[in-house]
């Protein structure tokens, strides 16, 4: 995307810019370690996503931020204040739950006004703010409906309005889109992001859906087994995954067998067949020259051509899968990869040019792959 976003991600966060800080936070449940000394600084106004498979600790981290759990070690700071022993109701957070948790015995206005009522906001002021926030989530005039009378998308808007109306220091989102169907989900995501930008509210978003994480976040933290594997902008995570787990969890990846041929400054060169591919050096810091390495390449960075000696590898087309805007082609290629290779190409010409069963050469775009020992 743009350079500014990239530079932002690298700049160390100054203290006064940090909205939420987890400092070496640990949490155990009996024998299992749910979080192992996790440290993150989330900036004011930032949309931070915690992404990972179930059981990775992302929900535990969110519940610690909310105060539903207390940490076994480390510190949690919201707006510079230590929160470890502060109960949920004194934390000034807004939270949206997976099933929305709208109070069934109150109407929309009652739900949205709840946080204001608790804070002792006068009736007139309350009505005014409820009206304003309902307009923001495009539910103007829905005050008297009950949660049961609303569709899934509308319930979600009410839940968002209820969380936002109290002007929270931080907005916590626990997989809020998982109950919506695909089309609605996409439009709700765009809308949520617009509102979040408009209000500039610091947001922590938990999801296991990697495409959701890539499209929404300012930065995302990829987690597994209670640790953060990589923290960065969506582009960094997608283009420069730091280890095998991140590379295979985010997006599709082909794994090709190669050999480390040399290093040069920040980059290294990996040989795959006769081809040479430039990769970042850092993940290979401990590999000896000519050691075997695995090359991770995105499907859109592989290209098909006539099978010649100059190609990195070659194989037989096993199947084409037409996806509308692009075509996924699966290629069987014996020795250089354990699995079938997946090549993604735009347009449907691929299918007529390389029919199933034909032999093709495969080349790798330089500078877009990463290699791990």
């Amino acid at each position: 995307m743009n350079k500014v976003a990239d530079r932002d991600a690298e700049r160390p966060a100054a203290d006064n810019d940090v909205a939420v800080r987890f400092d070496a936070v640990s949490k155990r449940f009996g024998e299992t370690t749910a979080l192992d000394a996790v440290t993150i600084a989330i900036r004011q106004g930032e949309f931070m996503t915690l992404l990972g498979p179930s059981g990775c600790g992302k929900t535990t981290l969110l519940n610690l931020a909310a105060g539903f759990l207390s940490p076994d070690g480390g510190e949690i700071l919201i707006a510079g204040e230590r929160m470890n022993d502060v109960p949920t109701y004194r934390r000034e957070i807004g939270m949206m739950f997976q099933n929305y948790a709208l109070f069934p015995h109150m109407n929309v206005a009652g739900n949205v006004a709840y946080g204001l009522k608790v804070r002792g906001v006068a009736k007139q002021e309350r009505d005014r703010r409820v009206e304003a926030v309902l307009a923001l989530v495009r539910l103007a005039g829905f005050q008297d409906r009950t949660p049961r009378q609303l569709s899934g998308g509308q319930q979600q808007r009410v839940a968002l309005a209820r969380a936002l109306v109290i002007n929270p220091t931080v907005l916590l989102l626990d997989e809020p889109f998982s109950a919506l169907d695909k089309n609605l989900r996409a439009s709700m995501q765009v809308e949520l992001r617009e509102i979040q930008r408009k209000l500039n509210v610091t947001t922590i978003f938990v999801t296991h859906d990697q495409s959701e994480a890539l499209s929404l976040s300012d930065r995302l933290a990829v987690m597994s087994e209670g640790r953060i594997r990589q923290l960065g902008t969506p582009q960094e995570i997608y283009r420069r995954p730091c280890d095998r787990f991140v590379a295979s969890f985010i997006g599709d990846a082909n794994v090709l067998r190669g050999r480390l041929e040399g290093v040069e400054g920040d980059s290294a060169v990996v040989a795959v067949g006769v081809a040479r591919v430039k990769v970042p050096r850092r993940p290979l810091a401990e590999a000896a020259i000519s050691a075997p390495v695995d090359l991770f390449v995105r499907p859109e960075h592989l290209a098909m051509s006539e099978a010649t000696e100059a190609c990195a590898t070659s194989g037989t087309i096993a199947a084409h899968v037409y996806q509308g805007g692009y075509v996924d082609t699966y290629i069987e290629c014996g020795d250089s990869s354990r699995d079938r290779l997946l090549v993604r190409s735009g347009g449907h010409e691929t299918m007529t040019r390389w029919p199933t069963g034909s032999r093709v050469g495969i080349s790798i775009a330089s500078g877009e792959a990463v290699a791990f020992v």
Partner: protein
Amino acid sequence: MPRSAYQRLLGFVGKLAVVLILGFLVLPAAVVTIAAFNDKAILSFPPQAWSMRWFAKALAYRDFRDGFHNGLIVTAWSSTVALMVGAMFAFALNRYRFRFKRIIEGVLLSPLIIPHFTVGLGFLILAAQIGWTRGFAVVIACHIILVLPFVLRSVYVSLRNLDQGYERAAASLGASPLRVMVTITLPLLLPGLVSGWLFAAMLSFNEFTASLFVTAQRTQTLPVAMYNYVREFADPSMAALSVMYIAGTAALIIVANAYLGLGKVLNIEQGR
């Protein structure tokens, strides 16, 4: 496809079986109801002449009036106290982990397996031992123990079906634990609490075995008064009273159903 004679026969037998079973269930109530309108002063079936006079007699009979009144006092106290105690224990059992939890749960539910006459006899001995006069306190204490398991069960099931997300959402919006309890938890539990209370009230009002031991002439409840009556008389005023009993209970359930829904009253609905 036309059904064969065999299938039709099978279908008929099935329906007949259902009718017979349902008929068997309502048979006692039906017999008593019909007997209540008998003009003769004997409990015979079927009656030869019809009359409403036994209703008038039952309503006017001093022991029945007192029994009804006593029953209301005992029922109101015992089911209300049992509801409060039961709800607190249900909360503790549902929300907290502590030592001896299983044992405490077992003790609380034990009146289910201890015969009522044992509980009644126990209280009789105890009251005599410590010189406790046989007033309402003994009867109420006895009834609390008998209905507690049912209240506990009812509230516990409602609590289990209550999504903790509601309480968490309220806490995240700034509500203190007390406020969450008053504005979220209790309103959402209300059907469970009402059904628990109602169930306890019906059990307590109908309870006979233990009541026979712990009541005195001054505190005897309606079932005990009825028992004492049958020992001496055998006229249809008993049947008339039974009919009023059934009508009263039915009215209560219909009202509760209108406000809460039968599933919730009987606590058989999962979730909401």
